[in-house]
């Protein structure tokens, strides 16, 4: 981890390999986030790839702060997902994902299936704070940075979205 500032410095000087090295640990969470926002695995991979290139082009905006790389990159991925959903053919031609047998088995798990259906009924921007908080387990401050809002607003968004999934959730159960 101590090498990351040097890696970031090399990336900022134009070394694409260094930037790819920095992004590697973030690709999996970025993909999960995109997949939930888009409910399309192939489109999620495309979104992550496009977001990586945009991040590369905008790297100078990070101003050398390694600590904010994750939230910065995830916010770019989220934006890319929003853009993907706005594309003309998004709602016209979409093929269902092919699930593996194991995943199909997991779908028979009744509560998870119910929750999955409920999650997909939320808007992508409502799903986003849930993934960041519950699945990626980001600190509230980082969730806030990714969403581009204050910590209080991030907390509110997480709670509101969670309540839509389970109406009897209390604040204490969420945080």
């Amino acid at each position, binding site marked *: 981890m101590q090498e990351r500032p040097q890696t970031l410095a090399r990336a900022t*000087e*134009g070394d*694409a*390999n260094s*930037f*790819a090295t920095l*992004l*590697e640990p973030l*690709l*999996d969470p970025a*993909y*999960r986030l995109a*997949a*939930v926002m888009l*409910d399309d*695995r192939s489109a*999620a*991979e495309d979104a*992550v*790839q496009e977001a*990586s*290139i945009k991040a*590369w*082009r*905008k*790297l*100078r905006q990070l101003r050398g702060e390694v600590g904010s790389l994750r939230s910065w990159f995830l916010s770019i991925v989220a934006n890319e997902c929003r853009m993907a959903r706005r594309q003309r053919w998004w709602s016209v031609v979409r093929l269902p*994902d092919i*699930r*593996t047998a194991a*995943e199909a088995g*997991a*779908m028979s*798990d009744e*509560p*998870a*299936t119910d*929750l*999955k259906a409920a*999650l*997909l009924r939320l808007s992508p921007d409502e799903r986003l704070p*849930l*993934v960041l908080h*519950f*699945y990626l387990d980001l600190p509230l401050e980082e969730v806030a940075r990714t969403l581009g809002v204050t910590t209080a607003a991030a907390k509110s968004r997480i709670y509101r979205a*969670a309540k839509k*999934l*389970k109406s009897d*959730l209390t604040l*204490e*159960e*969420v945080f």
Partner: protein
Amino acid sequence: MGNEDFRRELNNAIDNISGSPSHGLRDRVRSRLIETPSRGGPFWIAGVAAVTIAVLIVGILFVINPNRNNPIIGGVGQVSPSPSASPSATTSPSPSPSASPAASPTPAFTCANTAPITTQQPANPIAYVSALRTGAHAGYDRVTIEFSNGEPASIEVRPQAGTKFALGESGQTVTMAGKNGILVVIRGADAHTSYSGPRDLKTNYPRLVETRITEDFEGVVQLGLGINGPACYRFSVLTNPTRLVIDVQAP
């Protein structure tokens, strides 16, 4: 269902939606990043290119700008940086009227004749006088003769003692107001096709007291200016619209 249960179930649902990324994602991203030029290079080049293009455009616009008030041809004489700067820098005659035409954006006043100066549009048959105006300004009185249909072929300005001017080829003369005069001869122009305004403008400016079209025949327009004092002047041809501007030096 407590917090941990909710979290576990939600994470299961998210796992179910997303699955795992394909094994090739990491390599795809890396190879795309390596293929993509660093943002520093293109942006730097784009910046330099933008500045270069901007400078070129500004330069071209400056050169061809029809609103630019640099004279195409100009009066000559003693150096006078601006019309209002030095009314006292008067009547020193220039040894050579054609010595420095158009060298300065604001030509200096002179009290001498100018040789006929050919404008830059000799191919145009006739420029039509479309307006005749006068005005008083700090340090000078101005006559503006506006043209349509391009520039006249040549312009000649001749100061003279007295205000007696010939009225065309008729042999008649007219004596205008003032003590001295300036005759303006414009070739390749007429003052009757596009101009129907007054042909004799009497003013009580500090120096310019009368402006009169004294000839308008066969493509030659002459104007007499009655000057109440030394007949020192400068002139310019400006564009957009094309116009001849004669400034008579005033106190």
